[in-house]
């Protein structure tokens, strides 16, 4: 079994050899490490992408817009990922963004996971039949875990989810009521003596 340290170092060096700057290669190393840590085949897809990159031209999204249309070429997931991390606070204002023709969408996944942590919001990343819920870079829920993930996504949507409860007010109230059973009813004597200020906490 390869260690994550080996995975990061090799992905970084391979990315430099594939023509990216050292700074971007460092980002790829971290992201592939993360991808493998979360159980997604980052090494496999990176390897395929770099092999393809020798033969096929890809396009770069430099400034991310709400809608990012392809000029015919597929977009590079690495440059998009790095720019997404850099520009996430601006992109968040769009609430969601669309990307047409993204190559190797799985390679974008760890960049989005890191972005989710940076802005403190969950992100929903979807393309074709695949959906990924990115939880502050702490976990990823997906319907595509352990399934073959396509190497081209025709239509990608990235949505910024509002920080909202996953439960109803009634659920909360019921649970809170139960929690109150750990509190002690205060008698007059306890009201006087058990808190530092007693009954005279106004000045």
């Amino acid at each position, binding site marked *: 079994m390869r260690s*994550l*340290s*080996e995975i990061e170092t090799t992905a970084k060096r391979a990315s430099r050899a594939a023509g990216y700057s050292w700074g*971007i290669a460092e980002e790829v190393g971290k992201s592939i490490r993360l991808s493998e840590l979360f159980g997604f085949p980052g090494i496999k897809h990176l390897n395929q992408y770099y092999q393809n990159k020798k033969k096929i031209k890809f396009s770069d999204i430099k*400034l991310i817009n709400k809608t990012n249309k392809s000029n015919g070429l597929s977009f590079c997931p690495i440059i998009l990922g790095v*720019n997404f*991390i850099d520009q996430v606070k601006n992109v968040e204002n769009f609430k969601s963004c669309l990307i047409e023709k993204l190559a190797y969408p799985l390679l974008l996944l760890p960049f989005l996971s*890191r972005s989710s942590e940076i802005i403190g919001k969950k992100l929903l990343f979807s393309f074709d039949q695949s959906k990924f819920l990115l939880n502050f870079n702490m976990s990823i829920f997906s319907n595509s875990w352990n399934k073959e993930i396509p190497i081209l996504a025709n239509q990608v949507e990235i949505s910024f989810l509002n920080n909202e409860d996953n439960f109803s007010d009634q659920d909360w109230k019921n649970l809170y009521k139960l929690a109150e059973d750990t509190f002690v009813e205060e008698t007059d004597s306890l009201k006087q003596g058990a808190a530092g200020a007693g009954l005279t906490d106004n000045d």
Partner: protein
Amino acid sequence: MNIELRDPNIIMKLSRLGSFHQSRLSFLRSFLNEFKDWQYNRDLFDLDQKGYGTAVYSFKKKDRVYSLICYANKINDDERSDRVIATKWDAAFTLHDGIPLKDDIDRLRNEVPKQEVGRLSYKELTLSRANRSVRVFDHVVESLSNGNQPDLELLEKVGYLYRTTAVYGSGKFGLADRFRIKNREEINGPFRLEMMLVYLVRQFTFDQVNHVAKNKNPNSAVRLDPKICRNLGIGNSTGLGMAPFIINHPTLLNNWILSREIALKKIREIKIVKIKDRDLFKDCVKNSIKNITSWNTESEYQLKKIKLLLDDVRKFINFLEKEFDFEKNYPFNEIYLWLERETCEECIEYIVSIMMEPFGEIVQPLVKLMSSEEEKYFNIPSDRNVEDLKKILENKYSDILKIDFKKEESNQKFWFISKNKEEPRLANRFEENGADLEQPLAIARDIKELYKRLSPLNDNLKINQFLIDNSDLRHVIRRAFITEKFPYSEIQDNTIGKNLVPIDMLRLKLSFFGALKFDPRSDKWLRICMFQGAPLPDELKDYDEHWVYKTYS
């Protein structure tokens, strides 16, 4: 009195970093302190008459066990090399997490002796190999087997029976990643498991030499005197592999240096020093003379430094005894200011290290701050603007911005990774091929270029905009924002200049390991000794914490 931390622009120069010495903060000393109440055991010692075979040593506390597995193999004299190109060694070691099963020992027997081309598992924590100092090992065997103790002069000259030529950890070759074990309290300090491996290897070397001598002459052999054992350490040959580490781990480097600087600041701020503390300090300084006079090297560079150091330490002792009054307020501040005025960099840092000896209560809490969660600082704060970044460069890299990189001498060297050994190397850019595959270690040059590109830009431009067309400088933009928060994270020198002395970078790291007797064999590799004078494993429960300065007592 509030003493300022020392200026990174002075302390982080390579000549100063290359003058650092071991101290109570050093990793091998903090390792001993942490594991002193663990149960030590030799679990297996299955060597043949010549000393070849397998041995296992362990440290245990409650349910936690760390086991060193040793494989001693026969190699021919012409196969023995300290260089990284070697493929065979007298012994190979791994530190296993837990008690190894027979299956583990058998599995590892096929892998550990192969070192870099072997595969370890997440159950192994560190990996190393070592070669005998043949003349010392053979001499000790010969002497012991004849019923005599060995020649102390020879032992003092070399200082060890074996020297390691590499110690690997943190996920190399399949070893456990740091994240798997980082929450264990006992290893909350850098390189603690590497130190454990080296320490247990030292004990293996004593057991092996006794075993071989006994088998050579069972009737008359004697055991190596424990006092002699204590004065032997483990040698280590270290090359350029260590140098990039201190550039590639800026927050870790900061935490090491910052701990040292905080310790010094707090010691200088002590108004009245207790008699027992001043006496201990003076004793350590005086005893340390023996450490300097027994420091053997053929390196002219190091000999010059040792001579200067010896002269200055003697001058300092004279000052302490004849001129200095410890009754003054803030005596260590006075001493420090005197050192800055009167002595060389090597001596200043040497005495700074000794100043820490009496003050465990200051030093020990700092040991816990010497690790780093590097991931936390990886992301570039790309919503900051050009003005912020320019200010950081002007404030934190002021000397670096003065370097003229148009001059050939400022650009002469480049760092690369060798294809055959995957190890860092340094070469002349204008004479050798490969500069196009240069590693990102020319920080000063790239910082200067970054400043040049930022200068004409609008101050309000966001870094995420700047990065779109300047991704080639992304690695140093990240560093600059790290340096803003971590003042001692960056070497304030040119690491590709003609005058670069790479062993300064190695010495910095080795001093934090706790190495003694740096012996440069060229400007790119050196030998050192670790644990010389340290207590033996069965003495750990009650040992003298100042053993470094009592090696020969």
